């Protein structure tokens, strides 16, 4: 009875657009869905460091090297404050990381594709961060305060990354023949996986209804995907890059760019762990975790000794 009353109050607060804070009462399902979503987002930032990190040591000049290093560093920072946001819901970082390493928790499937050329660094900034921004701009308005604020901060930095990414794309697109070929080839590989970043189509999205009810999500996957396509197609045209979709065309009536059917078989296959890089990404994370164990143990042992010393 008590809970029903609290639930009604909670829903009124959501309806009024109030922000829910860590100490507020919240339904268990709300807490569970947020933990799943925020930790998944944090894991994506951490795993997402790998494909771009792959090019830090090969960035072609000092400016690009610093920009890429700073970008990947930002992602570590995003991971850190997303883990902190999730911790406000009563889970600790270590258990979240264990869930990632055991395969129980998911991360964005986009990072299961390889970065094969320098052009991929530009394209990830432009398309992958571009798609992430569309999604995170919505999440910055989500009902849970700490998550909403984390996304606000992330978006500010991601906008900068996207700008840098597009600048690399434009530089290559206006460069030598080899560079032009490099950038178009990269876009061909990343376009469809970028569209998949918005998740299943609305009718097949298992969590959407509940997330919308809790005002964690405000727009549907398909709406966000459409928004991304509408934003991105003109940017590609501006630098004479094409997308690998023969069905891509502008609909004068709706004012939207229509696009072809996403390969949902590929989408579900990669989510289930069978993309080109799922194993490698997880192995790299596991290796970093295992190799770092003695360091974490040393830091902990040292902190304990100092504490004892301090207390005596």
């Amino acid at each position, binding site marked *: 009875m008590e809970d029903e009353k609290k639930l009604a109050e909670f829903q009124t607060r959501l309806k009024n657009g109030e922000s829910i804070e860590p100490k507020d009462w919240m339904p268990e399902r709300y807490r569970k869905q947020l933990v799943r979503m925020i930790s998944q987002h944090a894991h994506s930032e*951490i795993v997402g460091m790998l494909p771009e990190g792959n090019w830090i040591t*090969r960035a072609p000049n000092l400016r690009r090297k*610093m920009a890429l*290093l700073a970008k990947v560093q930002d992602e570590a920072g995003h991971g850190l404050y997303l883990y902190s946001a999730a911790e406000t819901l009563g889970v600790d970082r270590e258990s979240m990381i264990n869930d990632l390493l055991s395969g129980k928790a998911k991360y964005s499937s986009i990072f299961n594709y390889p970065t094969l050329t320098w052009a991929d660094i530009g394209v990830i900034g432009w398309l992958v961060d571009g798609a992430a921004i569309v999604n995170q701009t919505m999440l910055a308005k989500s009902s849970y305060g700490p998550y909403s604020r984390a996304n606000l901060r992330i978006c500010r930095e991601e906008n900068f990354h996207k700008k840098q990414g597009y600048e690399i794309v434009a530089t290559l697109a206006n460069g030598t023949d080899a*560079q032009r070929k490099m950038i178009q080839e990269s876009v061909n590989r990343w376009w469809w996986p970028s569209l998949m970043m918005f998740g299943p189509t609305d009718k097949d999205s298992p969590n959407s209804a509940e997330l919308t009810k809790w005002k964690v999500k405000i727009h549907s996957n398909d709406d966000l995907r459409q928004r991304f396509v509408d934003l991105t197609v003109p940017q590609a045209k501006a630098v004479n890059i094409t997308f690998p979709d023969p069905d891509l065309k502008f609909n004068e009536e709706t004012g939207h760019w229509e696009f072809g059917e996403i390969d949902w078989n590929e989408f579900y296959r990669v989510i289930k762990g069978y993309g080109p890089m799922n194993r490698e990404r997880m192995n790299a994370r596991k290796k970093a975790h295992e190799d770092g164990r*003695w360091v974490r*143990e*040393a830091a902990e042992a*040292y902190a304990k*000794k100092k504490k004892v010393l301090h207390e005596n």
Partner: protein
Amino acid sequence: MAEFDVKTRELLFNYILGIADDRLILGHRLSEWCGHAPIIEEDIAMANIALDCIGEADAFYKLAATFDTEGRSADDLAFLRDSTEFRNVQLSEQPNTDFAWTIARQFFTDAFYVPFFEELAKSSYEELAAPGAKALKEVKYHLRHSREWILRLGDGTEESNSRLQDAVDNLWMYTREFFEFSDSVKLLYELDIVPDNSALLEKWKETVLPVLKDALITIPEDPPYFATGGRNGLHTEHLGHLLAEMQVLPRTYPDAKW
């Protein structure tokens, strides 16, 4: 812009390259950790230090470029020279091996660069003093970070102590190049442009030895051979591989701009 004669310009070019190469190669090594560190906080800290190092390298390359008779840019100097033209100390190119090696390499380097930049910041040549003063603020933070980790690892667990001891033992022979006071450096010193770096060895020891002792690390005996040659383009086998990776794009596409 100060007026220097041809000989001094050549000496300065090589001297400044030495600093820039030290910072770039060290920063590159640190950047290899990005995404693979023991904890996220260290991913961030090491990327931060790497960024400082590469930023410092950039500033010193730009200054070196003003003395280059071949008119090369900062990027050309970083990406189009061969290993025998690199003038960094061999310590900076040593591989990461494990976190203890990375920290020991960093600590030994920071313990030199803090007093070095302190002195360089006093150079009568303003263009050299300014990046020195800026870098000083950064390396002070680096030293705090590496010093703390030396203590944690040395006085942490048995395993961390033995790993750090191993790193210190292996890297000790690379710790003297910083203090080589060659005839060329001496000429610049006499013009009041650069510090007497041989005088910094005592300061280095004052920083390093007590911290290693506190960290329960046995100070290695001085070996019969200390590594030398980096300042003249002689390196360990590691640098060639590092450069092959770092320089691959500008070397493969010589006409391209990035």
